[in-house]
């Protein structure tokens, strides 16, 4: 757990454009079933190939909320405290097909997008991509740093 002993960044020392880090999220069908159970979102397009293809999808796709939810962990860890994420939004730009067998890999990177000294917040802009194609758009987390 020592990897989490991260101090909250000092707002005054941050610069717009600064990288906050990167991580990969590997998502397979089991991961989607687990998210379905944890979230209560049992829409079958996220676990049933037959239903997914019947409604015109290429196959089972990840919950948009799974992608959104897993991406922000990078911001929580950078902030040193998950309770400091005061605002978080995204548009779901493209579905994430999850093959079976196999997995899709979300590559999450974050940069400081804006600083607000008066509000004491930093906005982190996340890029979430699968095989180089962005799946989330305008994915922004506002972090309270003071």
């Amino acid at each position, binding site marked *: 757990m020592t990897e989490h002993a991260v101090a909250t960044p000092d707002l005054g020392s941050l610069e717009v454009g600064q990288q906050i880090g990167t991580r990969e999220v590997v998502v397979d069908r089991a991961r989607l079933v687990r998210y379905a159970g944890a979230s209560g979102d049992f829409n079958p397009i996220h676990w049933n190939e037959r239903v997914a293809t019947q409604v015109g999808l290429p196959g089972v796709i990840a919950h948009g909320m799974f992608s*959104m939810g897993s991406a922000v962990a990078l911001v929580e860890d950078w902030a040193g405290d998950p309770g400091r994420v005061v605002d978080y939004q995204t548009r779901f730009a493209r579905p994430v097909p999850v093959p079976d067998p196999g997995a899709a890999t979300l590559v999450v990177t974050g940069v400081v997008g804006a600083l607000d000294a008066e509000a004491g917040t930093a906005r982190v802009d996340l890029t979430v991509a699968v095989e180089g194609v962005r799946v989330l758009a305008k994915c922004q987390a506002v972090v309270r740093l003071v």
Partner: protein
Amino acid sequence: MTTINLDYAGRTYAPNAAYSVGREKLREFAAAVGATHPAHHDVDAARGSGYPDLVAPPTFAVVVAQRAEAQYLQDEAAGVDFSRVVHADERFTHHRPIVAGDELVTVLHVDSLVARAGITLVTTRCEIHAAGADGTPGELVSTVVSTLAVRGEDA
């Protein structure tokens, strides 16, 4: 097949039944999204950061919100065909973090229904409050705004 009833725009629902935020549910949700920060898992760590109990991940509020949204989405007269729904966007604003032990009541608003080019954009807003002693909405905790894109029958 039904069409979306645009008359629902502007509708506000009565506060729903309280959602009790439990430690194990927060741990389960955090594990499912890969949120490994100790404040989600270890009560002592959460308290050490100044919280009364485990802290919910930022998107956990969707679990609370979707129960309220069901009042609208599962209303047949509203005409939202779920097999034609795609999630368009989502936004969470936390006035304070959700923590284990919270009793939350949600007021659902259907903010807008906009039909254009064969798609109807359905925007709902959930105002999630701490339940007061009498079960009515107290302190505002989180606001969840969600937009669904619903394809028309010809799209």
